């Protein structure tokens, strides 16, 4: 099955410390991969996406993610967490099938940032 697994449902960090949100995908080829962020009662906002160019992708708000084909991973990182980073994060992969582009989402990781 082609799916996305977010390895942690909750991550808690202190402000100023690094953030690591883990995502693994399964696919028979190198898909396009995305990270979205959702703040409370808001829609999803794109953080970054990988589309088979550079394996290290930089996004908004200091986030970046590295595509590792050998590990089928696309983990999201940030060197120093800010209180405003507290939100839910979704990893997603694209799948083009049946004439349309479908996004397959992971279950999400809730990031808490403590002072």
């Amino acid at each position, binding site marked *: 099955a082609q799916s*996305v697994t977010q390895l942690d*449902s909750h991550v808690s960090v202190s402000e100023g410390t690094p953030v690591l949100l883990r995502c693994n995908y399964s696919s028979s080829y190198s*898909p*396009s991969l*995305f990270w*979205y962020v959702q703040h409370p*009662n*808001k*829609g*999803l*906002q*794109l953080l970054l*996406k990988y*589309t*088979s160019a550079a394996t290290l992708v930089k996004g908004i708000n200091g986030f970046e993610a590295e595509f590792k084909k050998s590990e089928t991973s696309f983990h999201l990182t940030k060197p120093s967490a800010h209180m405003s980073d507290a939100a839910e994060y*979704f990893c*997603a992969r*694209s*799948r*083009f099938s*049946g*004439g*349309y*582009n*479908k*996004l397959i*989402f*992971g*279950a*999400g990781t809730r990031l808490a940032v403590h002072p």
Partner: protein
Amino acid sequence: IAGITQAPTSQILAAGRRMTLRCTQDMRHNAMYWYRQDLGLGLRLIHYSNTAGTTGKGEVPDGYSVSRANTDDFPLTLASAVPSQTSVYFCASSDRAGGPADTQYFGPGTRLTVL
């Protein structure tokens, strides 16, 4: 209007009632999508439309219908609501129809409760 708007923001609905969730985008995107978000399940695709005049079924289409009379609007209708349709509904659009690297842009969501 900038981006995607959804209406209503939230709704409480009696089971058996008919309900239409509205979605409008002003980005002239060809493709539009409806997702539902449920705790622990991430987002799941209900229906999609690659271009005005065409629609297709996603992962969880049962109990829902859509139409795409023009580029901007993509309403989602629940013909006879059931409690299992209690969810948060997100409309999305992408700037090309079917490309695996397409970015999907999301609306703010509609929180629907069916009693």
